[in-house]
């Protein structure tokens, strides 16, 4: 894999916050993303985690695998509790601590949608990060509304899901919040820059983070980063930022605006066991949907 040499400050800043020995599966993208959070905020963050894989990864009493404050809450209430904490910090005059609601796609797109929509409307000063592993991985790979078209889960038909993925980032843009972005765990420098931008903005910030799950997507744990990278390189996952009423494509996604430069979608699909039963007609359908998504981005750029 041809890669550019990253700048050294990032690894030094991300050390010693996410502690070794957590309960995540091998190759899990969640601690990878937490390390980037640690590089931006160090200990100065309060993570609000609803029922999801992350509440398992953090670990049970008396230990805690991340050197930051963690609040475990009920499934539907991540955004509601985080907005309460944000208001309490504001009243007490604490300005240097960032409240982060960290929820999976189930806690955001399905069950937590109502409280998320409420918090976005009230515009509380917090960052909401949705890490999207495209199914309910913690309870055993059930379908969520964020599962893509044609993917297998234990509760879809054997031929794969027959509906398209719900685009939560676009729903949040419709709420008119100050900052919305998409990120990927394969591009930590891009994610870092987006978090740095989000921390300087007062108000509700939403980041949609693409996180491939080796257990649920049925691939070898060592391909976690490669699969995330291929999703961007095939144009299926688009990295962009939205602020001041305009969409700005991020660096890693910019070359793929031209369809000729994208890698074939089959390359991304064949790495994953969940797309084993996919047919050529379904691949055509995915391509058509991706093109629609790109057209929407180009319209609002």
């Amino acid at each position: 894999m041809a890669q550019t040499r990253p700048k050294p400050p990032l690894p030094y800043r991300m050390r010693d916050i996410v502690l070794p020995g957590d309960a995540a599966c091998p190759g899990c993208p969640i601690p990878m993303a937490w390390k980037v959070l640690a590089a931006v905020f160090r200990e100065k963050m309060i993570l609000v985690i609803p029922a999801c894989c992350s509440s398992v990864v953090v670990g049970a009493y008396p230990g805690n695998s991340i050197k930051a404050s963690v609040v475990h809450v009920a499934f539907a209430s991540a955004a509601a509790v985080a907005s309460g904490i944000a208001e309490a910090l504001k009243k007490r005059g604490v300005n240097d601590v960032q409240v982060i609601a960290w929820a999976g796609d189930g806690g955001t797109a399905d069950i937590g949608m109502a409280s998320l929509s409420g918090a976005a409307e009230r515009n509380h000063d917090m960052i909401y990060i949705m890490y999207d592993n495209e199914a309910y991985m913690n309870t055993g790979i059930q379908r969520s509304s964020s599962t893509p078209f044609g993917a297998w889960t234990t509760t879809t038909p054997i031929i794969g899901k027959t509906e398209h993925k719900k685009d939560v980032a676009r729903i949040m843009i419709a709420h008119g919040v100050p900052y919305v972005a998409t990120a990927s765990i394969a591009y930590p420098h891009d994610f870092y820059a987006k978090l740095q931008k989000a921390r300087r903005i007062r108000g509700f910030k939403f980041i949609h983070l693409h996180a491939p799950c080796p257990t649920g997507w049925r691939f070898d744990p060592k391909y976690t980063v490669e699969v995330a990278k291929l999703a961007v390189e095939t144009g299926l996952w688009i990295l962009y930022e939205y602020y001041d009423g305009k969409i700005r494509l991020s660096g890693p996604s910019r070359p793929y605006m031209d369809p000729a430069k994208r890698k074939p979608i089959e390359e991304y699909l064949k790495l994953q066991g969940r797309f084993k039963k996919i047919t050529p007609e379904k691949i055509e359908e995915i391509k058509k949907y991706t093109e629609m998504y790109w057209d929407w981005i180009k319209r609002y750029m």
Partner: protein
Amino acid sequence: MVGQDLIIEPINYRVPLSRPKKGVAGKTGFWRTEKPVVDKEKCVKCWLCEIYCPVDVIRVEPETGPTIDYDYCKGCGVCSNVCPSGAITMVPEE
């Protein structure tokens, strides 16, 4: 007194809060089936393995190159996959 029975005394009069601790799931090194081995001659010290390591066990220093804490390394192989110079190989455990 019915009301007082419901109040649970904290153990050793400490608030029952979780504290940051290494190894909440035990020594995760026991999960490993393959072990990453670094060839320090080939290493270009690009920090990619440290950035992507999900367990935060790799430390890359400009002088010594990468060192891996095998007590907690889960052996996922992400480091060997992202390494641009092929310096990390996965060796099966005995």
